[in-house]
């Protein structure tokens, strides 16, 4: 579980230059077992936030609690209880995959080093290549090795910074599947990503961040909040009479006619769709099919970022 209260990080870099406020009064809570998506443009302060929460750097002000430990006070306990996949997960390229993991298992004080290393190498499909130097691995395999490294000590909370960045679709799919498995096993995941489709599929809630938190909610709630619930009625043909019949319904908002489709906003589509369909049939429209118009997370993200 993560809890932050006005967490702030200011970097004072070059003389006579204004300080860089990387993270400004971030307040959020991520409960145990949640997959939380932390989205934002490059340079928004996502990596700085992850570094503060993993006790790699200290906050300038505010406070944070990770797995019940205070950032800045119980740093070693925090690092012991979390796993982290950094944005550029460097490996010891001259050492074998097995040796890379063994080193980290020992640093984390894992009791059954050999057993845990084998478990994760097998789980991520790297067992057959365990004696190969990490430097000979493809980018996807390196990423999987880095994920294994982050999980060796069975952390309760996992920070994933761009886990599928630069991977081909197949490797990305494998990594996402593995994150799904972790989600099912109850590991809390703090996912920083630019891949909005990935965030939409994996995360229960998302936070859009650009130095400060712009919004934080479930993707469904964000869609509803920004666009309402839109329903599309595909018709065999569409004329002004049919359009007017739908527009006249009192619960219909924001009606739009696009080619043979009527797009309307409804507060409660489950109850109101049948009424609209009955009305359409009454005025002689042939209803081919009905569907809910789903705005992509990308549209929501871009709108919110532009406003910010």
């Amino acid at each position, binding site marked *: 579980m993560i809890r932050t209260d006005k967490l702030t990080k200011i*970097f004072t870099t070059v003389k006579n230059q204004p300080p860089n406020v990387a993270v400004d009064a971030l307040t959020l809570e991520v409960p145990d077992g949640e997959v939380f998506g932390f989205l934002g443009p490059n340079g928004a302060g996502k990596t700085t936030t992850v*570094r503060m929460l*993993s006790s*790699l*750097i*200290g906050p300038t002000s505010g406070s944070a609690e990770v797995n019940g430990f205070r950032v800045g006070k119980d740093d*070693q*306990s925090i*690092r*012991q209880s*979390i796993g*982290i996949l*950094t944005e*550029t*997960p*460097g*490996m*010891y*390229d*001259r*050492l074998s995959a097995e*040796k890379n993991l063994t*080193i*980290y298992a*020992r*640093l*984390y*004080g894992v009791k059954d080093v050999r057993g845990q290393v084998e478990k994760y190498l097998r789980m991520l499909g790297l067992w057959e290549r365990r004696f190969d130097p990490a430097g000979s691995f493809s980018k996807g395999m390196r990423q999987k090795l*880095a994920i294994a*490294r*982050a999980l060796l000590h069975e952390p309760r909370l996992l920070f994933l910074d761009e886990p599928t960045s630069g991977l081909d679709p197949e490797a990305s799919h494998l990594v996402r599947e593995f994150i799904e498995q972790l989600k099912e096993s109850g590991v809390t995941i703090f996912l920083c990503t630019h891949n909005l489709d990935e965030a939409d599929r994996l995360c229960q809630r998302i936070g859009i961040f650009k130095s400060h938190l712009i919004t934080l909610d479930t993707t469904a709630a964000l869609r509803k909040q920004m666009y309402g619930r839109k329903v599309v009625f595909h018709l065999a043909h569409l004329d002004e009479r049919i359009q007017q019949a739908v527009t006249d319904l009192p619960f219909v908002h924001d009606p739009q006619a696009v080619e043979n489709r009527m797009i309307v906003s409804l507060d409660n589509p489950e109850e109101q769709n049948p009424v609209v369909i009955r009305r359409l049939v009454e005025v002689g429209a042939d209803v081919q099919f009905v569907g809910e118009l789903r705005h992509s997370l990308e549209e929501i993200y871009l709108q919110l970022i532009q406003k910010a």
Partner: protein
Amino acid sequence: MNFDRVLTILDKEWNEVFKNKVVLLTVALLPLLFTVLPLFTLYTLNTPGLNIKTNTSMPAQFAQGCPATLPAADCMKYFVLNEFLLLFMMMPLIIPTAIAAYSIVGEKTTHSLEPLLATPISTVELLTGKALAAAIPAIAATWISFFTFVALMPLVGTSSALIGLVFAPTWLISVLVLGPLMAIAAVNVAILVSSRVNDPRAAEQISGVMIVPVMILLFGQLAGFIIINPTLMIISGLALALVDIALVWMGASLFQREAILTRWK
């Protein structure tokens, strides 16, 4: 301090660094060269005519300082031998610099430092592991090279009186005390330099400045300005111990997680 973590870092460093051919060559070839070169030179000095106490190529001060117990024929060898003592003092400076430069800058260039710092390892444990990984091979190589040199001296016609002088306080303080102190200094200078550069070769070259004091001793002795004796070695040892304390403190102050992650570029 958790010694298992220190040993893990030591194990990691040796596994990683000694797979680097440049470092391996430095660690293996330098002691070999510094053992063979003095032996070869001592062998060539067996030529009659060179072995006179009044040889003009020997500084007058040194000629006067030649131990009375030593036969006149060995005086030149003793003079040359003292120059080679400085070679044995260079080894603990050059070897750890090569290892530390690759071990620390290497972590930066391969981006492996951040995941390492994200483990529960403390800064002291990490630095101790890295420092030992660089210093131990240097000290071991120096001592093995020195004792091999001494063991092979009779084979190149060195008299037992001269061999006995190698076990005098000057040599023993230099090799057994100053050597390790120099290795510690070299490792810490490499850590300090590594924080400012991104290329292991640049770190190695800049850290190479550590050889300058030894070179001053070497040329000072050749020119007759400096005579290496136990007093000079003890004074140098005390000064070096103070320098080491200052360097360890500076290295540990600089090696802060936040500074490394945000400023080491």
